[in-house]
């Protein structure tokens, strides 16, 4: 509860600071402070004391899973703000408002990680999405940004409509929005009724939309490409991870396993394979690193979907680890990308000579995304594969996943090749010393999680 309420409050604080504070540079400090407070409050919440003992009528349920994810999300946002705060200031003229919206998104994230009724799922997703529409379009004069915002908005609200239809149908079938009730109904019926199954399918489609799983991914590359890069970074990481957390909570084991009307496993299988296929294959052909990252985020989504396929304890832990590893690495890459003058692969040529530290850190991030050992990304992928292997059957799907992981190495390594092995200018903006230190620390963090994943996951079992 702490995180939800405080993020909303701090959002409002930021809102009014935009009126009261004249110094543009101060906003990111205020935001960072707020995120620190938020993180502290959330950790506090995880260990017991909640500052806001509000009776949520079981609409929200705060378990260690959700709270821990909140911590990850808030910490990632903090890192994001620290690394890319200055670039947010360049995105447009309403600097404070961007931070406001980021706080509101976080509020949505925190709701999504703890919802226990479809109402809260819906609200969480909307609280999360609506600020993002604005952030996407924040570069008002840029046509690409406009298009991205419009596309994101139309697709987002379309999928909201589908999700609502799903919720309504599930409600019609079960008479409740509470997850337990829905699960028990699914468990008790001999054959679930048409309403529930259709409803759940609608929900599945809508969630696939939100997490950009194929075949509902088509909006993602354009939106990620069109949005100002600094917000793409935020969207592609924390927000997407939150979507997956919600997806996982929604399709928890008992829903998917007991209903026989639809072969959920097979359905997820198809979604995963096609997501991996489309994400990876198209990413290979991109010329712009930003766009490549957009497609690779689809591919990474495919890997996260493994958790939804298997729905066991490995899946849950693994999704947390994946969220953290993926978010940190992507935030890092985007932070460096934002410093580049040219977003194409050629733009990275020769970066290692000009900025050895940035290149090294970027290499760590890219290796993490590719899932090479010694980086957090390896254990993230490891957990995902392990969860599927543990459920038994469908091992061929793991093999396919692994094949695509090898494909993904291709486009991640293109950046490494450009940085290290090709000659070029590697032109960057002015890079401050503190930025370098920040990036290096982030890379160190990723390696730490790559050697000792329980440094992260132990928190989950406190």
């Amino acid at each position, binding site marked *: 509860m702490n995180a939800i309420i405080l993020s909303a409050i701090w959002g409002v604080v930021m809102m009014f600071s935009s009126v009261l504070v004249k110094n543009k540079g101060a906003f990111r400090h205020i935001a960072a402070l707020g995120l620190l407070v938020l993180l502290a409050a959330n950790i506090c919440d995880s260990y017991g004391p909640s500052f806001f003992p509000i009776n949520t009528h079981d609409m929200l349920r705060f378990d260690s899973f959700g709270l821990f994810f909140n911590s990850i999300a808030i910490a990632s946002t903090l890192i994001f703000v620290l690394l890319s705060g200055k670039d947010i200031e360049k995105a447009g003229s309403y600097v404070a408002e961007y931070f406001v919206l980021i706080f509101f998104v976080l509020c949505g994230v925190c709701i999504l990680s703890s919802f226990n009724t479809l109402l809260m799922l819906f609200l969480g997703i909307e609280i999360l999405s609506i600020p993002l529409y604005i952030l996407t379009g924040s570069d008002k004069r840029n046509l690409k940004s406009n298009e991205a915002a419009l596309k994101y908005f139309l697709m987002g609200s379309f999928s909201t409509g589908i999700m609502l239809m799903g919720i309504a149908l599930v409600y019609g079938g079960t008479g409740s929005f509470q997850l337990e009730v829905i699960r028990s109904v699914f468990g008790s019926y001999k054959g679930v009724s048409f309403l529930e199954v259709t409803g759940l399918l609608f929900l599945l489609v809508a969630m696939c939309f939100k997490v950009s799983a194929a075949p509902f991914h088509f909006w993602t590359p354009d939106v990620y490409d069109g949005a100002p890069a600094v917000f793409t970074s935020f969207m592609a990481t924390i927000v997407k991870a939150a979507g997956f957390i919600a997806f996982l909570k929604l399709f928890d084991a008992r829903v998917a396993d007991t209903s026989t009307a639809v072969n959920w496993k097979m359905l997820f299988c198809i979604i995963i394979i096609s997501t991996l296929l489309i994400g990876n294959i198209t990413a290979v052909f991109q010329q712009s690193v930003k766009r490549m990252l957009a497609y690779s985020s689809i591919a990474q989504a495919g890997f996260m979907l493994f958790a939804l396929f298997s729905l066991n304890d490995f899946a849950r*832990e693994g999704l947390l680890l994946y969220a953290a590893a993926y978010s940190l690495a992507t935030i890092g890459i985007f932070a460096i990308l934002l410093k580049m003058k040219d977003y194409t692969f050629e733009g990275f040529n020769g970066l290692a000579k000009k900025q050895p530290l940035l290149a090294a850190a970027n290499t760590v991030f890219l*290796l993490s995304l590719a899932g*090479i*050992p*010694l980086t957090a990304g*390896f254990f993230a992928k*490891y957990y995902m*594969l*392990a969860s599927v*292997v*543990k459920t038994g059957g469908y*091992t061929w799907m*793991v*093999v396919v996943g*692994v*094949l695509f*992981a*090898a494909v993904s*190495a*291709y486009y991640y*390594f293109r950046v490494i*090749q450009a940085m*290290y*092995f*090709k000659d070029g200018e590697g032109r960057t903006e002015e890079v401050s010393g503190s930025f370098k230190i920040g990036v290096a620390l982030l890379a160190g963090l990723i390696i730490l999680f790559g050697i*000792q*994943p*329980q440094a992260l*996951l*132990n928190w989950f*079992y406190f």
Partner: protein
Amino acid sequence: MIPVLLILIPVITGLIAFFLPGEKAPKIWTLLSAIVTLGVAVAGVYSHRAAELNFDESWIPMLGARFSLSMDGMAKMLCLLTAASFPLVFGATYRNDYPKPGNFYGLMLLLQAGLMGVFLASDCLLFYFFWELALIPAYFLCSAWGGERRIAVTFKFFVYTFLGSLLMLVAILYIYFRTPDQSFALESFYNVQLTAKEQGWLFWAFFIAFAIKMPVFPFHTWQPDTYEQAPTAVTAILSGVMVKMGLYAVIRWLLPVFPEAVAHFDHCVIWLAVAGIIYASLIAIRQDDIKRLIAYSSIAHIGLMAAAIFASHKAGGEIGLQGVMIQMFNHGVNVIGLWIVVDAIEQQLGSRKFSELGGLAQRAPGLAILFVIMAFANIALPLTNAFVGEFMMFNGLFRFSFAAAAVAGISIILAAVYTLGMVQKVFYGNTVPRTENAVDSDLSVKLMLAILAVVIIGLGVYPQPMIQLTNDAVEAVITKFHSI
């Protein structure tokens, strides 16, 4: 404690090497580091106390993975090879100037650490970890300091190996969930109960990963290109030590875990290997580039070892396995010697093409003599170390299948053809313009080659210490086979 040192020393010194300025400092630093490591490795070889040779520490408790290292005979031998090859290569290439030497030598040391880790790990996840870790420095080394086509070629190498290891990861995971105590420990893997069908596909998942690394016939296509494009010092390590990772892994992780599958697929693998031997040998004859020739010859040798390994489960096959054990070491020594010579030639003359070389013996007699010794070892003439190993391997292979052994035996003749052809084309005949002004190579090169020559002849005459060293590992594998 020794295993930990073997990994830690290169890691730490390697990381320091990245930050060493200038040309000389990194060279001296890494050479020192490699010599210290070699000392530790030698100490390990002569140590018999379990406390010194084993290390076991909790690593990721929630996954049941432990940081456990152990050093049995086979590991001792390969660690010795690894530890010895680096100072040799460093010494022989001491005169070479690499751009950004700090990075180069740092990566080399990290590569050494990865290789050590692979040979020492007795926890499967840890093994996998080091398996991949050895790859990353190799990738950077080849890509950054290699030849013209280095980027594409090295990436091919990377993707092949990465894909293979990912397949292995899937198999590891599968076995992990089948182990009774959910652990990655070697013993748990050895004791896991798998049905024949499971063993079947798990076997292939592991085997492909190892086969790519070795490389065995259809998975070899990355190898000649990479060897050709990589800087020769790195090629020496790749072919001298890194390919042993695959062989080692087969013996350590494949044979004992899937004995039934091995028994089932042995013909298949052996015929693949034999086909590879012949194929590679034939191609080698047609090569114009020394590096490519040695690369193909390496495929042929490795193929024979692979065949012998898979033949070892039949009665009497242990001789073959024993042969593989010592041949792993011997091949490493021989091939490193060859690469050192190639590097010496290339550094001096700027070419590796037979068509552009000739008559070098007149200009560089010392190098020529040493090279001829290496070449004889490569053909496995008696009195060279390789003869002992190949003899034992053929012995084992004959027990398994006469036909396979007979076909593989052709390779001895072919090896003689291409190796001697190479010696002849490079060192004999008339000088060509390029070799007109050649001089004999540096003392450092000759010194290193001389050491190698001593080892070659020494082990050729008296292979017993090597056999004794690895005997326990052979027995362990064979017992496992006989227990089923």
